[in-house]
């Protein structure tokens, strides 16, 4: 039986096995020792992560940072291995559990991709999902994980605290008319704003809302630029921040895409004028 105390101990030991990003960056020759030392020196005076500073200085590309973070995850000692070493789990049980996990993960990824492909505007969805994740990575040094795609949803689903949900939305018009937005709970919104402002934010004030709006605006602008290369002519309106319950689309059918991060989840939401999501069976 693995109780909370054992799990906490294993998690603590796991933290110690994580290879620092600077070490990995030198190992892969993405950065040299002098660059890592310069970043560490900078980190003494500002609260920024190594990856973030390296990207700002154009020493690392976003794709390289993404790759380093993935390698960091892959090379840490798995929790299961630590539980085996600590004698709380047998090697056979661990192998079985890992195989089962990999099988489920792979099936889940295929199901999500198949589900996305059902949408009439799947290329638009894919572009916004990819660039939302990239901008999140750029802002927080964490790559969010796509966990679910749901059609014909409401903006606020049952069980959610609707007064704690902020919806940052942007109207897009042109060849296709739709609303793109990000749905955050208070914790997630404050976490994103704290990362982007490099200072802890404790309440949702105008500046925090402004940061969220600008984040959304950057994703939308960059997506429309990319989609224009494929012949789609789309124009954005300036983003607006709503209490989700007050948004004009609060009762409309929408597509919700959930991204998971260490700090919690947030949703990308799409509402199509002719409600494309309505044509998709969940």
């Amino acid at each position, binding site marked *: 039986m693995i109780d909370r105390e054992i799990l906490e101990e294993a998690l603590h030991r796991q933290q110690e096995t994580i290879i620092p990003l600077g070490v990995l960056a030198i190992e892969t020759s993405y950065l040299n020792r002098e660059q890592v030392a310069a970043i560490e020196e900078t980190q003494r005076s500002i609260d920024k992560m190594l990856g973030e500073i390296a990207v700002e*200085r154009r020493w690392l590309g976003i794709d390289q940072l993404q790759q380093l973070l993935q390698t960091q995850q892959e090379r840490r000692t798995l929790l299961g291995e630590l539980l085996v070493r600590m004698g709380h789990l047998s090697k056979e049980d661990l192998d079985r559990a890992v195989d089962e996990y990999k099988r489920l993960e792979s099936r889940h990824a295929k199901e999500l991709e198949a589900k996305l492909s059902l949408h009439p505007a799947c290329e638009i969805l894919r572009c916004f999902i990819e660039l939302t994740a990239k901008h999140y990575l750029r802002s927080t040094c964490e790559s969010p994980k796509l966990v679910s795609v749901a059609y014909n949803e409401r903006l606020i689903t049952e069980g959610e605290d609707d007064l704690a949900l902020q919806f940052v939305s942007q109207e897009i018009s042109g060849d296709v008319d739709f609303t793109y937005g990000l749905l955050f709970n208070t914790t997630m919104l404050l976490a994103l704003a704290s990362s*982007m402002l490099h200072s802890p934010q404790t309440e949702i004030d105008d500046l925090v809302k402004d940061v969220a*709006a600008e984040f959304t605006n950057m994703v939308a*602008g*960059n997506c429309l*630029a990319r989609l224009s290369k494929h012949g789609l*002519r789309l124009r954005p309106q300036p983003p607006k921040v709503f209490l989700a319950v007050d948004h004009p689309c609060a009762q409309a059918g929408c597509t919700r895409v959930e991204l998971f991060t260490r700090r919690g989840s947030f949703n990308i939401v799409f509402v199509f004028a002719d409600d494309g999501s309505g044509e998709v069976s969940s």
Partner: protein
Amino acid sequence: MDKTYRVLAVDDSAFTLMIISTYLESSEFEVVESVRNGSDAVRRFKEVAPDLVLLDLVMPGMSGEETLREILSQAPHARIVMVSSLGTEDAIKTCLEAGATSFLQKPFAKEDLVDFLRRIVREEA
């Protein structure tokens, strides 16, 4: 660092204005005025007479493109750099044809912004 160039920054996002000011802090560019909409930009341009304007494209009310045309109708030689995440070919072409000096796509790093502005003032020198 001598502040050689005076900049008027225009963006509806307070966060972006903060970023621009911070990024230019230790350069030869100084943000002498930050405004959050097009009509304030037109008014303050006359009063401040900046060397450069950094102008957002997508803003509520008077758009960046309208603001660009309005400023240029009063000061045809104004150096106006459009700053936007919306880097579509259409948007860039429209702004450059309307008389914008250049177009910088967001997001940008500190070095991107400073290098970009240096190239502009060097080319126009």
